[in-house]
């Protein structure tokens, strides 16, 4: 009986010690997501976040503007998309060791140039072909970087219910 009591007390003490030791790196004020009293850290989004913020929505808006033949908006979105690629290439010049500016150049430079011509000519068929080329370039780059499961397509609906894509009358 006395032996069990000693063992029970020791087990409880040792367990408490182990839990405290495991948590010793974390202060009382800190959550798993960080310390609320820390200085704000610089925002440094990496490739996946940059793609979701700067590239994918602009690719979609460009496609929606082109299919609505809203050429001023298409021109604007093309410029935004180009700038997005430039920002990504500067922010993450190498990703998993691979040279991002070179991959972006190989994947999208030519279709972006063709899109520029199509928009200036207001030529829907050339726009569609170049936009398909751009979309293929995105997917080719995803394949090169072992992300072939991220499949980009020509948008078949708008994800922006608060934006009009038809040309302003």
């Amino acid at each position, binding site marked *: 009986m006395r032996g069990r009591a000693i063992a029970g007390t020791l087990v409880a003490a040792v367990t408490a010690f*182990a839990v405290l030791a*495991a948590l010793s*790196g974390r202060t009382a004020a800190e959550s798993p997501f960080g310390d609320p009293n820390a200085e704000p850290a610089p925002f440094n989004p990496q490739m996946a976040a940059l793609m979701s913020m700067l590239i994918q929505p602009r690719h979609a808006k460009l496609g929606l503007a082109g299919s609505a033949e809203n050429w001023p908006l298409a021109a604007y979105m093309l410029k935004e998309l180009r700038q997005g690629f430039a920002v990504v290439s500067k922010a993450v010049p190498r990703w998993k060791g691979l040279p991002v500016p070179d991959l972006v150049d*190989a994947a999208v430079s030519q279709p972006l140039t063709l899109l520029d011509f199509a928009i200036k000519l207001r030529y829907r068929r050339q726009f569609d072909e170049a936009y398909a080329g751009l979309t293929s370039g995105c997917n080719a*780059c995803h*394949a090169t970087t072992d992300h072939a499961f991220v499949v980009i397509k020509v948008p078949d609906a708008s994800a922006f219910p608060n934006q009009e894509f038809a040309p302003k009358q």
Partner: protein
Amino acid sequence: MNSAVRRGWRMAGAVLAMSCAVSLAAWAGGSGFGDDDDNGEEEGPSYFGFVRDTNGTTVPDAKVTVAVKNRGGIVTRTDLLGTYKVPGFGKEVDPKDVEVSCDKPGYKQLRVVRRSTPSTDPKIPIETECTLQRI
């Protein structure tokens, strides 16, 4: 000391030993397992590059041979983007002994240029660009 007391001390000792092992691992910053895919210790750098034509346009589906001097090599093909990737050879292989060549029907190899990178990060592949000329 009766047998119940002795059994209690033995149990407590075992729990203490196990708990100390767990705590030490936690203090060390983890349980001691590394990344499954991190085999950089065993391998040399990987090899990567573009195959382009004389206009600078990338060439998909070109045959690329990455060969170690006097030891044979690996044959691969460029993807849709005109790039090839070959994983690292063993650490005993000096990258200077690795040669890249490219080939495609209707083309001949014009030049092979190895790019130098200032970084010594082993995760950065050795980049070699191969240029093909139409014949």
